[in-house]
């Protein structure tokens, strides 16, 4: 593990019993092409999630829920504050971590299921799902077997496993994305609208997968517009308030 970003410095409040904890997380965007307009989105977010807990982000559209998720994954850089994550035997501040450490955290600790699958040309579905397992050192055939089992559980027929998902329906692509996110059993899992384009049967499978991950002590943070799913999986809500509204 690279050290840059390893936290916390002595004297600062630590991560405590949590798997993930943000302190004063702030994020805005400066649009240089639009006259350097600055758009503040998140101001001082303090979120703490324990192992085995599922927290649903709440707040109106535009409040910054997706921005917060992307900051937690390191996809957006934080302007202020810290994002402490339990990683292996240590604690990492993702807000200060160098790119190599972020990649390592994503390989071992932190998973993210986005709303849309980023399709890689020509790579078969099975390998897209197996890839994070192979990156961790699992033998390819074992990784593929685990991937196939999870895809089958998500009702994606075996005849599709060998095809690249570019031509799949939205719901099928989302299930590929879900399988890729759940296969590695990340200690911290971020879910952005995981059931948005799924039918009732597959929603139930996702609810099961989340319950199983919680039982395995994963910390889960999700955006669930489907209130029925949210009520089934979330232990509590975390309100994200827009800085725009506050201003």
């Amino acid at each position, binding site marked *: *593990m*690279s*050290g*840059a970003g*390893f936290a916390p410095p002595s004297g600062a409040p630590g991560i405590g019993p949590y798997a993930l904890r943000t302190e004063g997380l702030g994020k805005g*965007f*400066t*649009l*240089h*092409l639009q006259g350097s307009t600055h758009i503040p989105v998140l101001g001082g977010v303090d979120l703490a999630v324990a192992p085995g807990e599922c927290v649903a982000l709440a707040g109106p559209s535009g409040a910054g829920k997706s921005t917060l998720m*992307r900051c937690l994954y*390191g*996809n*957006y*850089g934080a302007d202020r504050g810290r994002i402490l994550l339990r990683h292996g035997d240590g604690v990492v501040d993702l807000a200060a971590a160098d*790119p*190599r450490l*972020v*990649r*390592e955290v994503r*390989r*071992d600790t932190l998973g993210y299921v986005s709303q849309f699958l980023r399709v*890689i*040309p*020509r*790579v078969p579905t099975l390998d897209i799902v197996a890839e994070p397992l*192979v*990156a*961790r*050192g*699992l033998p390819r055939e074992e990784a593929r077997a685990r991937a196939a089992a999870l895809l089958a559980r998500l009702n994606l027929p075996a005849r599709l496993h060998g095809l690249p998902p570019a031509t799949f329906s939205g719901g099928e692509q989302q299930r590929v994305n879900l399988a890729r996110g759940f296969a590695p059993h990340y200690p911290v899992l971020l879910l952005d609208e995981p059931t948005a384009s799924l039918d009732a049967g597959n929603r139930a499978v996702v609810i099961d997968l989340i319950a199983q991950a919680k039982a395995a002590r994963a910390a889960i943070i999700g955006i669930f517009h489907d209130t029925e799913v949210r009520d089934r999986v979330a232990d509590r809500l975390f309100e994200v308030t827009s800085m725009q509204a506050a201003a």
Partner: protein
Amino acid sequence: MMHDLPHHPHPDPPPPAGEGRGGGVSGGACPLLAAHGLSLRYGAVPALDDVSLSIWPGEVVAIVGESGSGKTTLLRVLSGLLRPEAGEVLYRDPEGAAHSIHGMGEAALRRLHRSDWGFVHQNPRDGLRLGVSAGGNIGERLMATGARHYGCIRAAASDWLRRVEIDPARLDHLPRTFSGGMQQRLQIARTLVTHPRLVFMDEPTGGLDVSVQARLLDLIRGLVAELGLSVLLVTHDIAAARLLAHRMLVMRRGRVVESGLTDRVLDDPQHEYTQLLVASVLAA
């Protein structure tokens, strides 16, 4: 000349057991190649202005920017083909000894290019010998690193044609009878057959049709992961950088204006020029 490469300020512990090739995130405590303060002017025009970068084992780093940003000059300086006016490039060999690229002399540099390094040119004609058969092009690089057994060389050449999706029946054909995409795949086979540790790629999909580009990018992506290669990729193609690179550097007028994790640079660009580059990409 021997040097100590500057250590990463926070050394990594050994990678976890069973870390897959190509998944190499930790990949060792020391960079494979480290450049510091590179500067070079063409007349009054700064081609490189105080550029520093490092690449670690198993990392794919993209250098993006428009024509004239200095990215190809940077690749040529890093690979020893051009000498900077200021700054230094250090390479760490498999035994851990560090060598100054511009202080090692031409013979040593040529040896490095034949063994530890590979270079994939934008125009396959610059990387292939057009008067020599496909098999000969691949075999020649193997022989340059000491392979002598004709049967083994031919078998390896055949195997590499298959890996780059060229029918091994074309082994004895001249590259000039190949399409542009096939020539580029042949150049990649010729480069990778000796299992280099570090590969420089200069716009590898440059002159190709879009459909051919996608196939080539996917091929490169697969081989890089499978072989655990380190790659320095120069491209103006943002989509190619997103697909292949773990990290990227954005260059403008000889300077690195932004660098970091590929998806963060592209999804949350900070510098005005990076925002312009990202905004200019047509969404497909």
